[in-house]
């Protein structure tokens, strides 16, 4: 399949679009990344039009749409996958009509109440969703539903998420008993409150976490991505993962397989997709369901290094077997391709 993938690449805490595209390419698909940031947002400043466009939502969408249109003429993709609501749903329809391409949309958060998100889902020929919770809400053939919905959980990229030999200095700089990585939400702050005097370190958007005044002494204002994130996963005794219920409900966060692939130990909030992905509590991961259980298990595992090692070794083996991008994400595009009828030869558009 020849795919044009419009996505964010910077400003992200994980590199999901990049790892996904690379896994699809290794499977023989042709994937052209159209990084919104590298192709548009970071370049603005060279022209007045782009600079003004960035400050005006409608104009921004139109300028971007023109560039995506040009890319379609140049690359003749079979499908265009939108990683967010970069353009208006009406433009997606026009793109399909003009070039005969299929339209895909990635639903990363459960933000269906936002009008442009729900409209994009309705317009799309196929939708990739991170949270299985929304699949029954959007899959179907009537009432604006989309018939082709494919789930994608979290995964790890072993070339990036790997065990590192850390120096004593690395351990001192990045290590702590408990680590949380991610943005602020009130739910997360409440859950972490019980760990604040037990060696907790929070790496995340410091402006957001400033709202949790009781936790500010645990927060680092440094941004985290790339090699640094891998080092933090390696150096922490326990990585605590807490879902943000306003974003996802059942989903398997990428954090869990990423930490385990690094040989780390993760204490994760139980979700349906976590269990459905084959993890077992106390065997390949540790999970909790209530704040009390989080505090109990945090203390239990902190005192038992051997158990932590056993669980993280089993978890790593499970991730490398079933939850790498090649294994978990690779087949998704095959399934998308099979579900779509071939493009009509000589159909609409210059291709």
């Amino acid at each position, binding site marked *: 399949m020849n795919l044009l993938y419009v996505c964010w*690449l*910077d400003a992200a805490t994980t*590199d999901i679009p990049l790892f996904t595209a690379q896994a699809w390419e290794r499977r023989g698909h042709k994937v052209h990344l159209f990084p919104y940031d590298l192709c548009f947002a970071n370049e603005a*400043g060279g*022209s007045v039009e782009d600079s*003004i466009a960035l400050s005006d939502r409608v104009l921004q969408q139109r*300028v971007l749409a*023109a560039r995506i249109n040009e890319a379609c003429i140049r690359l003749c993709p079979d499908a265009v996958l939108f990683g967010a609501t970069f353009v208006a749903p009406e433009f997606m329809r026009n793109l399909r009509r003009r070039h005969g391409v299929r339209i895909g949309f990635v639903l990363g958060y459960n933000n269906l109440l936002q009008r442009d998100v729900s409209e994009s889902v309705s317009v799309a020929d196929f939708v990739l969703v991170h949270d299985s919770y929304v699949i029954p809400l959007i899959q179907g053939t009537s009432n604006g539903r989309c018939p082709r919905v494919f789930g994608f959980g979290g995964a790890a990229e072993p070339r*990036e998420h790997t065990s590192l030999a850390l120096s004593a200095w690395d351990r001192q700089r990045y290590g702590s008993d408990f680590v949380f990585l991610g943005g602020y939400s009130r739910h997360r702050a409440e859950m972490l409150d019980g760990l604040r005097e037990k060696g907790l370190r929070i790496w995340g958007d410091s402006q957001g976490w400033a709202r949790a005044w009781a936790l500010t002494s645990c927060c680092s204002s440094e941004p985290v991505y*790339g090699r640094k994130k891998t080092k933090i996963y390696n150096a922490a005794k326990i990585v605590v993962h807490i879902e943000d219920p306003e974003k996802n409900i059942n989903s398997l966060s990428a954090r869990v397989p990423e930490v385990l692939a690094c040989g780390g130990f993760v204490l994760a909030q139980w979700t349906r997709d976590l269990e459905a992905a084959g993890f077992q509590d106390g065997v390949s991961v540790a999970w909790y369901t209530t704040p009390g259980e989080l505090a109990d298990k945090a203390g239990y595992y902190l005192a038992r290094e051997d158990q932590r090692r056993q669980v993280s070794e089993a978890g790593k083996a499970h991730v490398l077997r079933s939850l790498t991008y090649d294994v978990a994400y690779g087949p998704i595009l095959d399934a998308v391709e099979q579900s779509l009828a071939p493009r009509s030869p000589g159909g609409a558009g210059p291709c």
Partner: protein
Amino acid sequence: MSAYVRYVLERAGAAGAQRVFCVPHAEEWANIQVAEELQAVLPNAELLAAPPGEFRAEDLLVIPYLEDLVQAVDRCAPLCRAAGSVHGSWALAYGLRWRVLQLAPPRALLRHVAARRRVARLLYWIARLGLREAVVRGLRWTCAK
């Protein structure tokens, strides 16, 4: 390794950098972070502790910044010009907060920053004269065609 930095270098054709010089940043963690990232991506490249007397082709000049790209590049404009005098060298403006990377030949980066400055000034006057709405409407109309 850091897949994203590698992707940006490969996309620009700069993945074969032989020597890397990172302009020191006021924040120590930033210097550590950039050095670790580039060491992981370019394990065979030499990480220079001081700016080279003479730049060569395949040299990579890294300019980390936290807030403002224009100020950061302005501060090391002489270095950028020196690097730009050699064909095949690269400059990487490294926005630390959101990992905003801009990689270009040093002279192109200087031109980009100069354009940003001009555009910012123009936008200021457009706003000052109360013309922003009219300009936006005009551009919307142009783009809709």
